[in-house]
């Protein structure tokens, strides 16, 4: 069986899978790429459907992550795409936010750091 003899993580597949989900440690401090709305100076969270046209949050996370890794160009394209899905005079930002997950779980909602990769209005 490939999983047992190979020393590295094998690519996942469907419907035959190695079921690698929830296996890798994410660490306590994480960076989460996302897309937010800035209205009147306030940051508003957007749904996976608005961000990536899917109701699956993990898929939306992958879309944003790939856009951020692609640089300003791809992040900017995603920004414009999301802007087309929201109403009103607002600013959309593609951001990477750093959190201490344990502090967040304790109620500290603000990220330790927020880096804007792309913005559009």
């Amino acid at each position: 069986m490939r999983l047992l003899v190979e020393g590295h993580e094998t690519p996942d597949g469907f419907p035959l899978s190695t079921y690698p989900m929830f296996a890798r440690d994410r660490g306590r401090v994480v960076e989460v790429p996302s897309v937010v709305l800035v209205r009147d100076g306030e940051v508003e969270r957007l749904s996976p459907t608005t961000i990536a046209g899917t109701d699956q949050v993990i898929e939306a996370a992958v879309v944003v992550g790939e856009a951020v890794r692609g640089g300003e160009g791809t992040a900017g394209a995603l920004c414009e795409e999301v802007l087309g899905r929201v109403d009103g005079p607002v600013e959309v930002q593609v951001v990477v936010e750093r959190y201490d997950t344990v502090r967040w779980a304790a109620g500290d909602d603000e990220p330790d750091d927020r880096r804007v990769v792309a913005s559009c209005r």
Partner: protein
Amino acid sequence: MADGYFAPAPAARLALFRIAVGVYAAGWSLARLPAHLDLADRSAARWDPVGPWSLVDSPPADAVVAALALAAPLAGIALAVGWWHRVVAPLAAAVLLGLTALASSFGQVFHTENLLVLHLFVLAVAPAADALVPGRRGLEPDAVEDRYGWPLRLASVLVVATYALAGVAKLRIGGADWLDGEVLRNLVAHDNLRKAVLGDVHSPLGTALVGHAWAFAPMAWATVVVELGAPVALLGGRWRTAWVAAAWTFHAGVLALMAVLFPYQLLGIAFLPFFRLEQLLDRARRRSSLEAQTA
């Protein structure tokens, strides 16, 4: 295994499994119909095909997506009814495989419907319509033959393999450290955080539990014991019942702490192959007979 892999089973047991899987497939694909139709709007730039779609360089045409999405609930119903089973069952398996693999071909592989698809392929090659088919005469639901037993054994083995592989993956990728609870705690925290940041439903219970680090080592051990211990279910009897109860509880816990839903398992459909389903019919018959006598 308690009864041996090729031990005979009643036709009704396999037929009841067919009906349950068909009804689930129909209900699930109907509930997901809007999302499946939306697959046609996915950008081709996100195409990362898996399964049968690995042979295709670009997303299928909108008409193909719509056809799969609309055919899936109908295929599930047709499978449950049992007419033309030798044609319908493989077709249902192919349609559901195409649809579920398509949903996993845009950058994220989902793991909630693997068992459904695998069970559909078992039913596709099994004589699962030799009983409980409306309008068909001459069926013998109580007929006990080898050919009704092996498909249910195979379906059971697939369930066991799924959980065992998941357990192996955790230890292979995470190492023994996965058992100290810190990895699980970070996973629960990260999953809920990501959902909150991306505007999705997350678990208040799981989020609150992150503050209690001591709780995660026992949960980590329990998770790995359930997954690696899955083969005991093949022993039958109390071992089977205990493992199924543990696996179901595991999924209830995942829903409670991470808002991740595995409906095929939580509705119990995934675990039906382990049980003597025909006993449900026997009880219904006895009740009906008793009512007739007392009337």
